[in-house]
């Protein structure tokens, strides 16, 4: 199936861009007139994925985050958040709730939030090459009177 519409964003992995990324993706998805909850779910999941890029992917350096968001005629939204950073050694472990490689005040809930707020999370990662997280959300049908 071909996407009805698509945006591509490229941004430095600065933490200041976490807010911009979720708002930009939210504005794009708003074309589908999502419910308030659906929109908040998407923004929260995007915020988690982009934060992972800002915190983990490039260590203390600043790299690039690539975001592709698209939607389909059946109201499926797909958002790819990609970095060319360090990669994840053990994806299964990284996705476990409350597990964090960093400690501090990171709750280790990023992937748990992504999973519970979307209809699918796919993670592809190659050590030393980078990580791609794909979020899928199927929006409910809106009845317009």
């Amino acid at each position, binding site marked *: 199936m071909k996407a009805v519409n698509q945006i591509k964003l490229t941004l430095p992995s600065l933490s200041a861009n*976490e807010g911009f990324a979720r708002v930009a993706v939210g504005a794009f998805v708003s074309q589908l007139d999502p419910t308030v909850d659906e929109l908040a779910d998407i*923004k*929260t999941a995007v915020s988690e994925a982009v*934060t992972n890029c800002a915190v983990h992917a490039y260590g203390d350096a600043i790299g690039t985050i690539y975001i592709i968001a698209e939607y389909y005629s059946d109201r499926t939204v797909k958002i790819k958040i990609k970095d060319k950073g360090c990669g994840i050694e053990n994806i299964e472990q990284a996705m476990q*709730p*409350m597990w964090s490689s960093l400690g501090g005040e990171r709750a280790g809930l990023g992937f748990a*939030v992504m999973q519970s707020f979307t209809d699918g999370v796919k993670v592809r990662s190659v050590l030393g090459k980078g990580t791609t997280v794909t979020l899928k959300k199927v929006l409910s049908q809106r009845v317009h009177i």
Partner: protein
Amino acid sequence: MSVRIELSEDKLIAYLEGELDHHAAPPIRQQIDEAILQHKPKKLIIDFEALSFMDSSGIGLVMGRYKTASEVGATLTVQNISAQVYKVMRLSGIDRIAVIKLKSQMRG
């Protein structure tokens, strides 16, 4: 993102405002901790009424403040939690360490 801190008797209330994410959390964390350690309240209340967004960074913020509050013997309540914020909090088991009051419960 900002925090307004109010003291009344043995209570310290931190009113959060804006969008709470990984970028915004550090200065908020520091301001609340400083106030707790300075005033040593019996009760710490974190108010979410004016918070328009929160991701899992908010969980770290609440858990960390629970630790600081415990150091001075204070209990923790988080109040005016929206349904969306509650969805994030529910994943963390925070309800085991803090009293959570939803917006609807506050009004009711």
